[in-house]
């Protein structure tokens, strides 16, 4: 199975500082890491490789420092790592990102399966996977919570909120996996050491120009623009907060609840 896993380096959300007064997002305060949702994609790829053999190529578009995320992917089981790095790729929205990734994947050659994370914690869209599939002209299954079968065909259970659908597809196909799909393993110390020595290929926009239109890269290829970023200021409700008066509080709140719900609720089985 020739599997490709697109991963993104993102800031560690628990460390990013959001300054409400200055209305800025301070990314520099946080360490960068692999998008947590992409770890499930990598683990899924590794489990398939353990069963069927084959190769895993991790690919990322981002600044030079994203190389560390790709090294982490190598430590976790990827065989090959490609970083798309170029000033002209910067500022891409999901359309330009997916187009650029699609161009690089065309250049990589034939593949059977692409596994993306459900979404990124910074961009938060979940769009790059399906858009990538569209650019490549292959089917996709999003929100896969369980891979039932991979081989000649793929059978996956996807989470459609109130329902779970089992979907069958031929290959090649792209899937996006959720947190329910597996439990990612931690890389061993040895894997980490080996990954430090492994090669991460760096491709510039120039290298994609044989398969792509550079006007569709980066800011230029991005139809959406962020005009403003605001830190939401909690409006709050001027509620009544009871301290050290649990009896009085529960009395008053019980009254309020009974009034609100009136006769509508089920007293029957009490």
């Amino acid at each position: 199975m020739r599997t490709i896993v697109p991963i993104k380096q993102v800031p560690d959300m628990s460390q990013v500082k959001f300054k409400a007064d200055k209305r800025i997002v301070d990314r520099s305060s946080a360490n960068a890491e692999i998008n947590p949702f992409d770890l499930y994609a990598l683990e899924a790829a590794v489990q398939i490789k353990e069963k069927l053999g084959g190769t895993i190529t991790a690919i990322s578009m981002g600044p030079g420092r994203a190389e560390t995320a790709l090294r982490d992917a190598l430590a976790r089981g990827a065989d090959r790592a490609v970083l798309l790095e170029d000033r002209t790729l910067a500022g891409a929205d999901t359309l330009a990102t997916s187009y650029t990734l699609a161009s690089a994947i065309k250049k990589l050659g034939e593949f059977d399966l692409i596994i993306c994370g459900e979404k990124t914690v910074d961009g938060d869209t979940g769009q790059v996977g399906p858009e990538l599939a569209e650019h490549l002209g292959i089917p996709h299954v999003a929100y896969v919570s369980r891979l039932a079968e991979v081989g000649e065909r793929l059978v996956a259970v996807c989470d459609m909120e109130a329902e779970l659908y089992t979907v069958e597809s031929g290959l090649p196909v792209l899937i996006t996996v959720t947190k329910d799909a597996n439990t990612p393993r931690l890389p061993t110390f040895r894997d980490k050491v080996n990954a430090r020595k492994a090669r991460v290929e760096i491709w510039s926009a120039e290298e994609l120009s044989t398969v792509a239109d550079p006007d569709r890269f980066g800011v230029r290829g991005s139809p959406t623009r962020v005009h403003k970023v605001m830190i939401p200021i909690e409006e709050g409700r001027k509620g009544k907060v009871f301290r050290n008066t649990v009896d009085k509080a529960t009395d008053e709140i019980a009254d309020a609840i009974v009034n609100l719900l009136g006769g509508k609720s089920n007293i029957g089985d009490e």
Partner: protein
Amino acid sequence: MNGYTGLMVFAEQREGSIHPVSYELLGKGRELADSLGVPLSGVLLGSQIKEEAGELIYYGADKVFWYDHPVFNDFNLLNYKLNLVKLVKEVKPEIFLLGATHWGRSLGSRVAAALGTGLTADCTSLAIDKDGSLVQIRPAFSGNVLAHIKTRTRPQMATVRYKIMQSLRRDVGRKGEIIRKEAELTPSLLTIVHKEKSGEVNVAEADVIVSGGMGLKKAEDFCLLADLAKLLGGVVGSSRPPVDSGWIAREHQVGFSGNTVKPRIYIACGISGSPQHLAGMRESEVIIAINSDPSAPIFRVADYGIVGDLYHVVPKLIDRIKIRRSGS
């Protein structure tokens, strides 16, 4: 811009019934269309559900493009995409909206990429700018910031979160046109071989939710909350950490990466009130918070707050409610 005009709303249907987010989009779409002075259309793909096309008009659409074919019974992704792309190219709406359900996000991405236009995910607010363009407002960075986004291509596409916009009151007097479209079909590369309900609870639709967070000491203690929920005819919800710890199933999760809820009463027990949790419940009609820490942010959005130990407060509250019920 190059002849693009009007608003179009994708009406998501499951098993022949319209997802309520589509009515909410028509409600918002009506407001935006009126402020632009342009028509609002709905698109419905389904099998033998013409009455539902009429419903879209009762909820605000001027026109409905209606496709009737058995392939649309299931979420036949590539056939949905094919027909939507064709329709958008023909009708040229300047704004095209879908619900930010899993299906809407998956399908919307494909349609946008095929059209080569922008798509803004999971909007919580939409407005028209002075220049007539659509301002799409959405949470980013895990809900910590709100981004205002504009699209320079047409149509301006967005998916919009469920339970944020208001639908109009159903009005059977409203008139509109249903335009039947012939479906074009492509061999399906994806087959849905099985469907099942994903779980028993539906927190998104519940009237009363009693939620627990890390203030609970162990998984079993959700039973205490279940007692209160049952008494009020409601369901149990959760913040994310208990879900991640495997204490309760994911469908109970409320918040940014869980369900957005708008119940009549939301009772938060042992939940601090992180931005990600508030993102999913701040629209609740009445919020009651029980937390031992007086500085917990949840109190800032609460209508009633009790500073106290939930293990002490919840049983007391159950007692008091029972007393009132038996007295009346």
